[in-house]
């Protein structure tokens, strides 16, 4: 039963590995970036789930509530989400430029073209 109790962390680990696997195994540059996004998203979930207090409500100051979830990880992860978006955007922009210059977004073909040049 212990395994299921912490199912949120299992979700994180699974997502993380899926994302990481996509980054490593796929040759398509856009798919790599998607994998990277999944990988980053898993960390967001890690932070968010660690801030959750069971039985706690949203951190609103009111006499009716006494147990709150920790808002700090949420704030932190807001920053990390922005960073993630910036990274993905920059990566996609690079892919567009690579496509302009090389005419392909497949890793192996780019490698081939580079090898021929040297």
């Amino acid at each position, binding site marked *: 039963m212990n395994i299921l109790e912490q199912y949120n962390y299992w979700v994180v680990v699974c997502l993380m590995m899926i994302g*990481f696997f996509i*980054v490593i195994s796929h040759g398509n*540059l856009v798919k*790599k970036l998607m994998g*990277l996004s999944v*990988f*980053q998203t898993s*960390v967001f979930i*890690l*932070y968010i789930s*660690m801030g959750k207090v069971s039985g706690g409500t949203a951190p609103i100051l009111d006499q009716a509530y006494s147990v709150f979830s920790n808002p700090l*990880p949420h704030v*932190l992860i807001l*920053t*990390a989400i922005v*960073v993630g978006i*910036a*990274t993905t955007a*920059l*990566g996609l922009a*690079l*892919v567009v*430029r*690579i496509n302009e*210059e*090389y005419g392909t977004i497949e890793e192996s073909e*780019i490698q081939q073209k*580079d090898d021929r*040049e040297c």
Partner: protein
Amino acid sequence: MLNHFPILQVIVPLLAAPICLLLQQRRLVWIFTTLVSAIALLISFQLLYQVQTQGTLIYELGGWQAPIGIEYRIDALSALLLVLVSAMSTVVLMGAHKSIEKEIPEDKQTFFYIAFLLCLAGSLGIIATGDAFNVFVFLEISSLSTYTLIALGKDRRALWASYQYLIMGTIGATFILIGIGLMYMMTGTLNMHDLSQRLPEVVQTKTVFTAFAFFIVGVCLKLALFPLHLWLPNAYAYAPSMVTAFLAATATKVAIYVLVRFTFTIFGVEFALSFLPLSELLMVLGLLGVFGASIVAILQTNVKRLFAYSSVAQIGYMIIGFSLGSQAGLKAALLHLFNHALMKGAIFMAIAGLVYRIGATNLEHFKGVGQRMPLTAAAIVVGGLSLIGVPLTVGFVSKWYLIVALLEQGLWPVVALVLMGSLLAVIYVWKLVEIAYFQTPSGELSPNGNEALSPQDALNPQDAFSQREAPWIILVPTWLLVVANIYFGIDTDFTVNVATQAVSSLFGESP
């Protein structure tokens, strides 16, 4: 005003970046950027002075007390790094105008300076902050701008190098984020000082081990430790020359600072290096880096790639010093960090000068540059001698301290290997010297060289010979660094004192 210097150090370049957009003229943007960087340098000198006289500086952002608010904490180590980073950026920017004008399309030059300032602000922020999560944020600011800077390279392979760096850099940064998150989970604090006091209670738990493992792998990706260095050679080789000079002198150094800061201040050296077999592991990887990367460097035909691999090897030396976990070892690592920035800065600046005239970075194009561009070529030679560790250069000083630190622990075989690593450096530096000085140029100029000649040169061929020295605006900063290479090799008071102070404060603070 003086009280606010720790924050001004970061804020000034950060706010200056958008102002660049408003300045229309490219020359104006360049002057403005250099000025901002010089101001950052002055601030960092003042901070170093303050740290030396008053001890650690603590700056609370918005007046909020430390565990709740974010604090900037500047001790001897961060002050030294701040001086190093802002000094290198100022020197590089001084020479950047000419080189950038040639290597980057006109409409993108303003963006170059903006990205450069952001990169500077990020690096300075990583060093100044005393908050673990802030480190991640600033790390991403500097990384994202670095990817852009690399992608500005003329060759289309720069794009590919930048993409690869983006993937690996983001994985590294995300690992660091996971590590910080797990630490937060165990302690409920992100402040470094607070973390260092609360971690010992929970240090034996699996979560902290995991946090540390994620963190180390992430940082080692960023600092290009041997098996994780794959992004570095291409990124250095295809970035614009001035960007290479700046990155080689600062980017990996800042990552090493993060490693030192987290292992020594937060986790504590006993946990970091003895509970896990990390000490041995890092030493082996460092040695492999020294040998593997040096041998690959010998085989390179592209000068920038050659020195990029040499950077990986030099990082190996720093990691060896770090892995000893002793005061002497850490001192050697910090000294080498400082000195390596000086030598690689000088070498890559000189290469920027060569590229400005020759327009290519392959060894064959460098035939006879020793005669045609004596001052520029001499700068590379002095930098090369420093890499080897010849006495009277900075390289000798740091290798001396490294060897003393190794002998202190009786590690004779490692000493022998370190010395052999220097011999490998002799080979790849000699390769360049031989081509530059002992081979006559093939024809009047290499095919690419003709394009690189400026119109004035073509008009008066008699003057062309004398004009082929790199422009003074690149030469002067290059030689500033070369002189620094020799000066700090002879007068070691400043560097050794600051390094000693930094090390003793690190060992004093660590629980």
